[in-house]
């Protein structure tokens, strides 16, 4: 987080300020216009199941990319080179394809609003509530982190007080997220993604030109930093050993993120058809393929063009902004940063709201609210999540490296939840009791591995393996659900239905 503080310019031009003002005003009005489309909880949480594949695809990547990807990605490329891109390539593309073909059809056809709701139907309401509690708690925490990051950037770039920056950001995002629901979030995400890519492409063009053209840029990298051009690092590497990248990231963490993340999946559930849902993830994978070029290249620019070695690798992007970008372009990049953060905040708020409203309050309350009450409750919960996020935001300053800390905490529960989803979809024999106990014991096992100091990539892998084993062992001694109860919830039933139709 501290690296964002270094994003200070000596002066801000009127062009930069104008860009920022136009962005804030435009995105607020555009997002608020979607309020008129919301008449029911289905409209609010799932955009009335009307979203086309290309909007969802852009929204997925808008949600996925945060300012940490820009700053940390460039810093990582400066430090370890091309290996940084593993998070965007092998750590994303295969999992996104699996999500498109294996997971989205089940979620969409089951007609659920959230991942915990699917778990509830496949296993039990207890599993649903536990999963929703874990995922929504992290969502609110992450909203606080995103708000703090945005406030730091506004403070350092424009000199705004932190509190004012948090309130302005929360006000803008809150207005359209609370009023317009998923449709407002998805369409504003798409606009924000265009801004992000435009900013990154302009930086890439300016950087390559500064390095003497594309051919010279590539030749210099090859000659001076050949080690930075390897996608895999030795197995003895402290942070990213290649076995950890393949097994932990490629096989567990990445599929767990892309197949079970509520903020990502919610817009797919709002697709107008099942095909649109599947195609949206494939389109997002196409965009994701190009993300490393946009976030890794600035790291290489700093590597080649900085006259002396940077003390902190995460200074790579700030160095490029300060030394290479003219006024107007730096403002565009700053707006891209803010857009990246706001799209993540709005998506996380919307997903937290659906989980708290339907999967926690909706299950615990004995009498189910009618649709109008659920819509009203959803709006209030969104607002409440934003307010809690505002109060959590300053706490971020108490923890050094909170962003990495949050990522590590994510690896505690992604393995067990992914195991429940994957095995639940593939095998009808997996029982509700096995789901409940595997979730709890898998979480405990992951926590034990984390306390023992195991690398988070290996922790995710082994907690996944342990949860899978537990699912099969406990299922052998307990009763499964009947075939009729598992209709539309298992692989064979969904594929068979498609073929029959």
């Amino acid at each position: 987080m501290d690296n964002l503080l270094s994003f200070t310019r000596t002066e801000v031009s009127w062009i930069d300020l104008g860009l920022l003002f136009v962005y804030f005003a435009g995105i607020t009005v555009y997002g608020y216009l979607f309020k008129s489309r919301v008449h029911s909880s289905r409209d609010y949480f799932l955009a009335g199941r009307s979203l086309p594949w290309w909007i969802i695809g852009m929204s997925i990547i808008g949600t996925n990319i945060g300012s940490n990807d820009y700053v940390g990605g460039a810093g990582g490329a400066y430090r370890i080179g091309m290996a940084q891109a593993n998070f965007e390539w092998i750590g994303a593309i295969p999992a996104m394809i699996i999500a498109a073909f294996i997971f989205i059809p089940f979620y969409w056809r089951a007609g659920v609003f959230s991942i915990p709701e699917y778990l509830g139907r496949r296993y039990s309401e207890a599993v649903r509530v536990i999963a929703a509690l874990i995922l929504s708690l992290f969502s609110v925490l992450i909203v606080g982190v995103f708000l703090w990051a945005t406030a730091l950037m506004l403070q350092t770039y424009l000199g705004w007080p932190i509190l004012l920056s948090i309130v302005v950001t929360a006000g803008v995002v809150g207005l359209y997220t609370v009023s317009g629901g998923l449709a407002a979030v998805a369409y504003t995400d798409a606009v924000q993604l265009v801004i992000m890519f435009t900013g990154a492409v302009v930086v890439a063009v300016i950087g390559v030109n500064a390095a003497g053209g594309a051919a010279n840029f590539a030749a210099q990298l090859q000659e001076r930093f050949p080690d930075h051009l390897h996608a895999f690092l030795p197995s003895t590497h402290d942070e990213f050993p290649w076995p950890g990248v393949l097994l932990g990231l490629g096989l567990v963490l990445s599929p767990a993120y892309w197949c079970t993340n509520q903020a990502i999946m919610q817009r797919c559930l709002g697709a107008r058809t099942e095909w649109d849902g599947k195609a949206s993830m494939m389109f997002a994978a196409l965009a994701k393929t190009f993300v490393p070029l946009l976030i890794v290249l600035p790291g290489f620019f700093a590597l080649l063009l900085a006259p002396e070695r940077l003390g902190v690798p995460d200074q790579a992007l700030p160095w490029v902004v300060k030394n290479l970008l003219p006024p107007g372009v730096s403002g565009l990049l700053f707006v891209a940063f803010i857009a990246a953060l706001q799209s993540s905040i709005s998506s996380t708020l919307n997903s937290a709201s659906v989980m708290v409203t339907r999967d926690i309050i909706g299950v615990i309350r004995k009498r189910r609210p009618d649709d109008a009450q659920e819509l009203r409750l959803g709006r209030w919960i969104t607002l409440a999540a934003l307010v809690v996020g505002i109060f959590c935001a300053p706490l971020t300053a108490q923890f050094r490296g909170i962003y990495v800390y949050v990522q590590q905490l994510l690896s505690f529960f992604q393995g067990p939840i992914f195991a429940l989803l994957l095995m639940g979809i593939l095998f009808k024999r997996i029982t509700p009791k096995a789901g409940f106990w595997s979730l709890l014991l898998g979480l405990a096992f992951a926590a034990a591995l984390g306390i023992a100091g195991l690398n988070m990539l290996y922790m995710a892998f082994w907690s996944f393996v342990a949860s899978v084993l537990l699912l099969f062992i406990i299922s052998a001694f307990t009763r499964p659900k009947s075939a009729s109860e598992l209709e539309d919830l298992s692989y064979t039933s969904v594929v068979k239905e498609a073929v029959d139709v």
Partner: protein
Amino acid sequence: MFDWIHALPLWAAKIGAILLFAGVLATVWSLPEDFVYFGAPDRRRWRDLRVWATVLLAVQCGIYYVF
């Protein structure tokens, strides 16, 4: 825990990555065509998502082969 892997050369990682991509591709092409097109307004070739997956994975194979 993974000591035996430490002895493997770095190119083994590339082979592992390409095997992963091949496995995903095989999974995708094993799915029935009706399932892939389910919900699509028509059956034009560009809507075959298996073709999209093939292009995406071919690019990945190329990237990991070069780097």
